[in-house]
């Protein structure tokens, strides 16, 4: 009888452990085990605790700025495919909303893949595998219930995968970014990245606005001067 009870707790522990992200599995399971002797209490406590743990891990591993960029690139890919292949779809509001469905599925799977990545196991292929998993999920759902016309789905997904791979190479997931010994704290790095991206976006917007006021025959030289000035600034700032 006692052996059966112990076995029940072990089985429930293993089952609950599957849902907890590997980065915090050890301590969460240990805490739940310490608080609850019986299987029923363990399960009840786990049901109340594990969703919060998953949400917290997703929040920690998701970079909001990168997520916005990924969402933008993904949606633009499907929009471009739809614009070329089926302009009537783009003209309707329902069509624009339908184009967002595969993007949402892919991004949710990417967020979960980052949350459930094991930080103790480093892999160069992790960004590639995460993107492949995301679009495998999109196609699996598409097979069960068609989301978009086949041609738009194929071309949009292909372009999205390329964009997402490039973004993930440029901005690796937070858990994979190298941490210097004297480097700033995690939250400071997030602020630095966000501030840098905002500054870059503002600079690009400013350049485009000024560029629209410059006469056509002077646009080339002015753009060249601006880019040259930016490059000289960054080079001299680093030295």
């Amino acid at each position, binding site marked *: 009888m006692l052996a059966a009870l112990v076995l029940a707790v072990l089985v429930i522990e293993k089952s609950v452990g599957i849902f907890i992200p590997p980065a915090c599995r050890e301590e969460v399971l240990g805490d739940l085990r*310490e608080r609850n002797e019986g299987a029923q209490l363990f399960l009840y406590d786990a049901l109340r605790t594990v969703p919060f743990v998953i949400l917290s891990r997703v929040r920690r591993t998701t970079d909001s700025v990168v997520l916005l960029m990924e969402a933008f690139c993904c949606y633009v890919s499907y929009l471009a495919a739809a614009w070329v292949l089926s302009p009537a779809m783009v003209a309707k509001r329902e069509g624009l909303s339908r184009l967002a469905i595969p993007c949402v599925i892919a991004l949710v799977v990417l967020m979960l893949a980052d949350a459930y990545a094991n930080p103790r196991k480093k892999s160069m292929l992790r960004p590639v595998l995460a993107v492949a998993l995301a679009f495998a999920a999109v196609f699996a759902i598409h097979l069960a219930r068609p989301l978009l016309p086949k041609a738009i789905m194929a071309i949009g997904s292909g372009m999205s995968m390329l964009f997402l791979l490039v973004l993930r190479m440029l901005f690796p997931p937070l858990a994979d970014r190298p941490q210097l010994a004297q480097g700033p*704290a995690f939250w400071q790095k997030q602020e630095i990245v966000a501030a840098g991206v905002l500054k870059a976006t503002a600079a690009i917007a400013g350049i485009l606005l000024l560029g629209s006021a410059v006469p056509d025959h002077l646009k080339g030289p002015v753009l060249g001067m601006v880019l040259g000035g930016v490059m000289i600034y960054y080079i001299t700032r680093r030295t």
Partner: protein
Amino acid sequence: MNVGQFEQLVLTAILSLRDDAYGVSIHSKVADLAKPKAVSLGAVYVTLDRLEDKGYLSSWLADPTPERGGRAKRFYRLEALGERALRESAVTAKRVWQEVGRVRGWLKSYWLLSCWLLSCWLFS
């Protein structure tokens, strides 16, 4: 440095627990401090993660223990930034309470004066 009420409770619990601050002990201490409100373990984990991301806490995984099914504990320690945030929150709370006391005192005096004036008018 803005620290929410629940975050203050968690920081205070870690400060009082010193070297024994891990998930279960922090949760019991926070539950004691937050009485009669119930506190869930999940909320404590979320807050611990958020405070660690802000740089107020640091954590490390200790050795496994048999009473936890051979699983390790994650201990937390208050960093200098966290201590400063907690101190500032305590100073702000003290200032707020002093102001509340002052306003209550003023209201009490106003009430007494009104009663005296009314009684003077009634019995004149």
